[in-house]
């Protein structure tokens, strides 16, 4: 299956003319494994689209910040305008420490620590670059490539008109009855009492590699959080501190929220890609990171799920704002001599100095002298 047939003619020329010495050592197969760290945010291969990050077909030779339809950080766009073109050398530098090379890049990834990993992942990516590619197989992470012609026909074979339509019995007679499979496809919410949990199971030990592969890039290897991405573990006994750390273990009231949210919205940029067993395993691993369980063989399943309670559950209370003194009924606001003497300034935003700068126009930014 040739996914990039037009590249074949170029391949021989390209390999001699452009192959860089540092890439000669790279192993594309090993790079495919390394790329799993990237796949939460980047797609590559036939039909790859932008996700959290831009698609990476033909990244070799691409001007930085130039993939059509992707919204880059200003920093990346400026780097491209400044002449940065991705090749083995520039990509190697970037992947080692992205934020060192492009200050202000959106890419949250901290960088690949091992030179081998960089060389291998570049060798892998190079197989998807037309100027050098030697007819790679299409890879979209987690999915088997399908012959597009067949897939297209399959979709067309199931038009909505052929579905058994049962009309609404309501006053307006608008809409139609939802079918069981349709409800099952969308109704995946899980409640604290376990209502909505699917069949499945997963252990702490099974969850760890799934976490490392899919989650650690943003949440850290131990749920400690990278950059400003959410911290998932730790923070016990900090809720009364000046800077509380609100994690699953320290703050969240219910484990069902972890399962439900991971299943519907994670990994960020590749939602609904995990199996139910994966989600059970990840939830078990997050319990482990939060010291809710300490046995790596602990298995979470539909059967024991509702018996798990998180430590902070009892500390959630109903909205009682109305009982606050300033909301007491019948308060007549003071109109004159409300304070004993001249009012003093006690805090100033200018001192903190965290307001974003204006865009260079004269009227924004506050006219601070």
């Amino acid at each position, binding site marked *: 299956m040739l996914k990039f047939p037009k590249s074949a003619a170029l391949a021989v020329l390209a390999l001699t003319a452009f192959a860089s010495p540092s890439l000669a050592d790279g192993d594309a197969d090993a790079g495919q494994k390394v790329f799993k760290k990237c796949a939460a945010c980047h797609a590559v291969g036939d039909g790859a689209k932008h996700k959290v990050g831009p698609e990476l077909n033909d990244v070799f030779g691409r001007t930085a910040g130039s993939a059509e339809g992707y919204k880059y*950080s200003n920093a990346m766009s400026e780097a491209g305008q400044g002449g940065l073109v991705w090749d083995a050398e520039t990509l190697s530098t970037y992947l080692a420490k992205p934020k060192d090379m492009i200050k202000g890049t*959106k890419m949250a990834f901290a960088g690949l620590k091992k030179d081998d990993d960089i060389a291998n992942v570049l060798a892998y990516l190079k197989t998807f670059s037309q100027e050098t590619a030697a007819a790679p197989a299409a890879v979209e992470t987690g999915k088997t490539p399908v012959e597009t012609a067949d897939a297209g026909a399959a979709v067309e074979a199931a038009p909505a008109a052929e579905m058994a339509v049962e009309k*609404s019995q*309501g006053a*307006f007679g*608008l*809409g139609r*009855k*939802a079918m069981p499979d349709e409800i099952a496809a*969308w*109704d995946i*919410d899980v409640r604290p009492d376990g209502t909505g949990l699917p069949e499945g199971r997963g252990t702490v030990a099974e969850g760890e590699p799934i976490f490392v592969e899919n989650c650690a890039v*943003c949440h850290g290897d131990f749920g400690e959080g990278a950059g*400003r*991405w*959410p911290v998932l573990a730790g923070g016990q006994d900090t*809720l009364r501190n000046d800077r*509380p750390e609100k994690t699953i273990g320290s*703050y*969240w*009231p219910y484990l*069902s*929220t972890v399962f*439900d949210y991971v299943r*519907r*919205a994670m990994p*960020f*940029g590749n*939602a609904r890609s995990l199996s139910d067993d994966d989600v059970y395993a990840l939830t078990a691993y997050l319990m482990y990171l939060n010291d809710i369980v300490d046995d790596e063989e602990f298995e979470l399943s539909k059967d024991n799920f509702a018996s798990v309670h998180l430590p902070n559950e009892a*500390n*959630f*209370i*109903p*909205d009682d*704002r109305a009982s606050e003194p*300033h*909301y007491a*009924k019948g*308060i007549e*606001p*003071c109109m*004159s*001599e*409300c*304070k004993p003497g001249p*009012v*003093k300034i*006690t*805090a*100033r*935003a200018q001192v903190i100095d*965290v*307001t*974003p700068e204006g*865009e260079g*126009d004269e009227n924004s930014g*506050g*006219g*601070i*002298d």
Partner: protein
Amino acid sequence: MVDITDPKRTKQAASRRDFLKAGLLGGAAVAASAGVARAAGDPLITEIQDWNRYLGEGVDVAPYGKPSEFEANVVRRNVPWLTADPVSSINFTPLHELDGIITPNGLCFERHHGGTAIINPADHRLMINGLVDTPLVFTMEDLKRFPRENRVYFLECAANGGMEWRGSQLNGCQFTHGMIHCVVYTGVPLRYLLEEAGVKTNGKWLLAEGADASAMTRSIPMEKALDDCLVAFKMNGEALRPEQGYPLRLCVPGWEGNMWVKWLRRLEVGDEPWAQREETSKYTDLLANGKARRHTWVMDVKSVITSPSPQAPVTHGKGPLVITGLAWSGNGTIKRVDVTLDGGRTWQTARLDGPSLPKALHRFYLDINWDGSELLLQSRAIDDQGLVQPTKNELRAARGENSIYHNNGIQTWHVNNDGVVENVEVS
């Protein structure tokens, strides 16, 4: 020096600021243009301007009109350090540049958790399932056949002002108060849709779900759902903007913005709340004692002076000065707004102008004659329930500084002798 005699001057240069400069340089300019007969006075009046001589663009140039190029700084802005990634982030409405009570669609602040979903309305479906007699699926076409209503509502993020709990921090009301907008929505009362499906007697809660990459979900009590919620497809007369949930969003009037689920695709009826991420780990209000309030839905009575403010300094010196701002309450209408010039020692009642609609923004004005002395400006709103906007210190005394959400404390702006404005707190 700007050559004010050059007929090819760019449009941009012909501004009031240049006129002021021209005044200072007038003698030199007149001398330099010796030989040309000149009338005395403002050259913007005495000389024929380009826009008065040459033709402008035709009606086919801008099929969808945009603001004047001279309004290019009236834009949403974000605070990059607030969030990890702009895909799951927020930007802010430029309140300091706006007037009246309606926010233009392109300036309504954005908050989404998985980027802006792009959905062809022909591909959009709304499902109602759970504790109903008949689970239903609607197309957009179906929804537009129900009777519809038009309502003006504000939408405020519960975190509006959340960066200011520990003290004044961001210098501009766009950043301190800009997680709010107010538009007229057109949509179908949610009640009609629920009645069409038939809510069972034990159906006490509703889960609203979005179709975006975060599949946003919130639990809403059935009483509210049957009261005034709307399923909206238009804002300010035109289709919802993509970043506001095109083609369909939920309106939950007076309640925190996170509940107004965008790209609305599903409504599930249940007998208990679902304890979703955005109603447990987020949008709960941590108190000083370590307890956390949940289901804090209503947006409290609140106001802010939008001009003068740090991004809208006083540039004209002493004399007549329009102080203006916005007030709102999730409980209903605003009954009164008071303004102080001295940091809260003495107050005077401001003038409300424009429509006074429940759960909508209200515009107020105080027209003063500024003597050039320093001002400590504050506004204080009172709603039709008699609730008075509290001070920031009153809120801190009741809740501590870790609540993040529902900061409706009174804002202070310091105006110095030069008209420069700063976000401050006062004794």
